[in-house]
């Protein structure tokens, strides 16, 4: 198993971010993490990344604590996470210096295909910054990609480019967890969907099964979380 959460609870002060969640993630899946605002999507991804530590339960990544295995995963947070002075060339220096699995050729090809301008990030639009961050993330040869709202606040054309890149760069031995509110646009990407409601796992289903039942991922979203 690539990653797993076993009866995990995460509390922020008196509020539960996630409650008693148990999930396994095998290799080679594209998983949609869906839910309304505050449902625990970001908490789930941060726990898997090792950015948060569970209040109770256990999170395992590559048979170890997530923080210790951080070099093997890609985490794309919901924030910009780029320094304003950075250009795509600076980002290359940064990634190449820190990550052994960073592929410069792939990064440059991604910059081209995602049409990322060469200026500083402070002079880029949100969509351009989002595309740059995605290029930095997908240029790594990791086994687990945790993408938290990579489509949020981004224009339609950029969203399409981002989704196309995710599909193109995905290898069958890699697992991608993608949280998004753009359920309809990303629906075709998902092999498995997790529906979170108020910090609890409301439904864990294979997209194919939903379709066999005559339901789309969006319809199930409305039924489970509506």
């Amino acid at each position, binding site marked *: 198993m690539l990653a797993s959460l076993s009866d995990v609870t995460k509390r922020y002060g008196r509020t539960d971010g996630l409650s008693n969640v148990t999930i396994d993630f095998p290799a080679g899946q594209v998983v949609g993490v869906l839910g309304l605002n505050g449902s625990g999507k970001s908490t789930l991804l941060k726990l898997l990344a090792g950015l948060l530590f569970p209040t109770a339960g256990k999170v395992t990544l590559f048979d170890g604590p997530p923080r210790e295995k951080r070099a093997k995963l890609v*985490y794309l947070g919901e924030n910009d996470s780029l320094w304003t002075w950075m250009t795509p060339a*600076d980002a290359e220096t940064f990634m190449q*210096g820190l990550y052994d699995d960073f592929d410069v050729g792939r990064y440059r090809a991604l910059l081209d295909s995602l049409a990322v301008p060469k200026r500083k990030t402070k002079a880029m639009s949100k969509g351009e910054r989002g595309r740059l961050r995605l290029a930095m993330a997908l240029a790594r040869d990791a086994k687990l990609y945790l993408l938290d709202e990579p489509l949020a606040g981004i224009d339609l054309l950029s969203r399409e480019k981002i989704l196309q890149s995710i599909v193109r760069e995905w290898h069958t031995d890699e697992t991608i967890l993608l949280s998004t509110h753009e359920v309809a646009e990303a629906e075709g990407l998902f092999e498995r969907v997790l529906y979170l409601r108020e910090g609890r796992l409301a439904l864990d289903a294979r997209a194919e099964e939903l379709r066999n039942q005559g339901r789309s991922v969006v319809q199930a979203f409305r039924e489970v979380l509506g």
Partner: protein
Amino acid sequence: MKGFRTLFWLEYRRSGAWAIALIGSLAFWAWGLFQVRRIELAEQLGIRGMLVAMAAVGGAVVLALMIGRLRGETRGGQYQVLLLSPPSGHAHIAARYTFALATAVLYYVMIGGLACWTLWMSAVPLDAGSIAQLTLAIPLYVLGVTVLPLLAWTLLLMVFTSAYRVSGPGWVPGTVMILGTLFVLRWLIEGIVRVSYTLPGWRLLEGVQTAVLQTTVEAQLEPVATLPQEPLWIMLALTLVLLVIASRIWREVEA
């Protein structure tokens, strides 16, 4: 090492403007020192000494702010990127600290140069040994006893408060650490005073004092024979301990 080099480069890019502004501020202090020539000769050295001291204290504050700023990067997500990068906490802390250290050395050595210039303007004759002491030995002593531990403490405060910010109120560990430091500082100063001069003192100020006393301008200065070396060793050891603890806590930080 590759990771450290990149983190040091990152630190240079993040904080380079701060460092340049700090070093550039010496032009302002030099201008101030130069203006003092219009004041009565007997008071010049004292006022210039005060200005140099203000530059030294101001520099320490700016360096602490430079090394400890975190809020924006926590909100912006850059801190998350650093926490998840492969280099260890030691590498992250070392890179941030080394850049601040390099800036501090440059700044305080230049302040030593300003001190030399000040004495020269006040017609105090300085030999080569005294100039070397003023520009290197004394600034490095002051750095080791005060600025370096302050910067290490700031880094520890930054990491310590951020470690507990997400799951609980971050101001609690911050307040505990600041209040705790006040008590520890008192105990530390008492301890240092008690053990000072157990080892032979350093005659760092001797040449400078002799030169000052040779002039009639500041003949009222009390001669201080030597500087104790114990405070330097104790504070350097404390700096190292604080940095090691900060590096260890880095692993526990949530963001």
